[in-house]
């Protein structure tokens, strides 16, 4: 016996040894960390091995687009069977790697405009789909069973030692970097500029394997800019109901807003409607959201104390930098965003409010539509009850008291609100007996229907007709009728039991504008603190610099 354990003969540093082999192969291409853009395909073929798990940084906004394109140009004889673990598939190159047989497995979060093509590639067997995650889930799996062997990231600038400055769009970079660098992975950064000294070190150089200056700056999508000019009176009416019927009622100070026009309308009537109601300092003080331009009037009028951002927004850089009491700003003067921390801050806030495409009679909602695989990004982690929460706040306690609960132990409750018009684009009813998600599940063989916010997590539904408070519904039948009671003239709404809805109204589970002191006559565009992008520029004192496509003056 004397010490002859078989485990003692196992090598325990194979990843590290392999890491050194990869770097050795790369030494034929570069003598240091900096790699010429023209040599990038050769570098990738040298350091990636068939079957590797590869992460291409693809956030909501920022994309390692040059490296993604280079990967798609690699030889399928050299590189094949790759397993892509990537949060956001937005660019054609992201799917080209599957079309060309370089990669065949995929775990991801969100696909947006590539959803249709992805559906086809899954049908053709070119993509073996692992799972569709939320952002937090996929990042968590980077530190568990889906750690990348090679990761591509995007940064604003790098120095010769590989120190990286991400600029305001740090987004998902820290999660990818941490998981890759500390598990003997190869980390390749594409940067817009090579500099002698970076303005601040967002990623330390000794974590970075290689740096490539891309021929063009990395792609950034301005997805959080909502033009006040197209906010409708119906959206203003719904915003008024949210402020009176939910924010004021529960005293909501910490929250997360979605990024649609419905929540932009709320932001734009804070300095007018909510101010007149004396709600400044009582609601909407801390937000977890990107720097949406429609927040400017509420910030300038002193409503909002603090905002932590998952990413940035084009045109908002100078404004954000000049408001370092509100935003999170580095010593260099530019914003630092971080999607994981923003998601966590929003998860443990008092309220989430966002929009959706379909809601069923149990309150389950989904933005999944037939024929597309898109995923939900971060919405499910914001739009759910935070069951690990232990600290109290007045709104959280009030919601907890409202919810019927078995047993005697008191508990709080996060508010999860969906704000929708009863009819969407093309007069498609938002309220349905059966979500398209069920058909999607069958079509793509998914383990579950893709639901964005589960009915059991949802507490309120706001429509132009009124607010359904699902916490006050004691049975599934009551819940169904409360939903029908705000579903307007959709078939679901028309099939309501009027007597039961009236009873629900008496106990506050259904409330119409007059029940919460909302006067529809005020629901005009005059109520908006800014009625155009130009007004937003004016509110910002000229600091907001909107992208050209939003300028019409």
């Amino acid at each position, binding site marked *: 016996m004397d010490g002859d354990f078989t485990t003692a003969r196992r090598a325990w540093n194979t990843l590290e040894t392999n890491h050194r082999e990869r770097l050795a192969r790369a030494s034929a291409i570069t003598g240091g960390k900096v790699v010429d853009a023209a040599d990038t395909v050769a570098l990738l073929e040298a350091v990636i091995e068939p079957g590797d798990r590869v992460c291409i940084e693809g956030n909501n906004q920022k994309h390692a687009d040059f490296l993604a394109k280079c990967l798609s140009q690699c030889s399928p004889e050299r590189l094949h069977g790759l397993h892509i673990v990537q949060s956001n598939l937005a660019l054609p190159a992201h799917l080209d790697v599957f079309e060309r047989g370089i990669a065949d497995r995929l775990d991801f979060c969100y696909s947006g405009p590539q959803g249709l093509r992805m559906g086809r590639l899954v049908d053709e067997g070119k993509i073996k789909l692992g799972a569709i995650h939320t952002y937090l889930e996929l990042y968590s799996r980077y530190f568990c069973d889906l750690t990348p062997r090679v990761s591509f990231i995007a940064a604003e600038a790098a120095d010769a030692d590989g120190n990286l400055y991400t600029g305001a769009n740090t987004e998902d970079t820290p999660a990818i970097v941490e998981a890759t660098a500390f598990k003997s992975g190869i980390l390749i950064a594409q940067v817009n500029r090579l500099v002698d000294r970076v303005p601040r070190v967002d990623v330390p150089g000794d974590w970075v394997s290689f740096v490539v200056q891309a021929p063009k700056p990395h792609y950034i999508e301005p997805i959080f800019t909502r033009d006040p000019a197209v906010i409708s009176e119906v959206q203003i009416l719904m915003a008024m109901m949210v402020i009176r019927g939910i924010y004021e009622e529960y005293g909501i100070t910490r929250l997360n807003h979605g990024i649609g026009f419905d929540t932009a309308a709320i932001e734009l009537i804070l300095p007018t409607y909510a101010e007149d109601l004396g709600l400044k300092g009582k609601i909407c003080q801390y937000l977890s959201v990107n720097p949406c331009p429609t927040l400017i009037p509420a910030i300038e009028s002193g409503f909002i104390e603090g905002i932590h951002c998952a990413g940035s927004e084009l045109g908002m850089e100078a404004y954000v930098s000049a408001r370092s009491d509100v935003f999170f700003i580095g010593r260099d003067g530019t914003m630092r965003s971080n999607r994981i921390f923003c998601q966590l801050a929003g998860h443990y806030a008092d309220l989430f409010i966002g929009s959706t495409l379909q809601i069923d009679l149990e309150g389950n909602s989904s933005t999944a539509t037939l024929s597309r695989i898109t995923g939900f990004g971060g919405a499910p982690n914001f739009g759910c009850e935070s069951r690990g929460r232990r600290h109290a706040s007045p709104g959280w306690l009030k919601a907890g008291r409202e919810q019927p609960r078995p047993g005697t132990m008191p508990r709080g409750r996060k508010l999860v609100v969906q704000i929708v018009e009863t009819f969407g684009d093309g007069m498609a009813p938002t309220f349905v007996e059966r979500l398209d998600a069920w058909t999607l599940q069958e079509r793509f063989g998914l383990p579950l229907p893709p639901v964005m916010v589960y009915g059991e997590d949802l507490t309120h539904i706001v429509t132009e*007709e009124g607010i359904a408070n699902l916490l006050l519904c004691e049975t599934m039948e009551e819940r169904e009728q409360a939903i029908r009671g705000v579903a307007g003239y959709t078939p679901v709404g028309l099939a309501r039991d009027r007597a039961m809805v009236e009873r629900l109204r008496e106990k506050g589970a259904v409330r119409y504008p007059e029940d919460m002191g909302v006067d529809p006559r005020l629901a005009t565009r005059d109520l908006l603190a800014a009625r155009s992008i130009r007004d937003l520029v004016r509110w910002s004192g000229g600091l907001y610099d909107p992208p050209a496509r939003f300028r019409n003056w």
Partner: protein
Amino acid sequence: MEHLEFDIAGWAGVNPARDHVLVGVVGSGNLEVMIERAELAGRCAVAIDTSIHGFAPTWRRVVEDFLARHRLGDVRVSINDGGATPAVVGLRLDQAAAEYTGGVR
């Protein structure tokens, strides 16, 4: 264009603040609503011109609910619709009624 007319039982006892009101504008996704006082033995006469065909039953429900909500009678309601959703229609009707009754509900 589709032209619809409904004759609907009204409610007694509403004293209008003015003889007629006009709110909204005809435009894509929007509508114009006029409410006029009329001697109709308590009934309500509703005339709708809409750019979208085939929604007569929905219009009838929207208008019936509206008249009941504001307990209107002896009125002529004229609607010029540019393809508004029921949400916009409801809001515009409520705004017109609030003007007509002087905000008393």
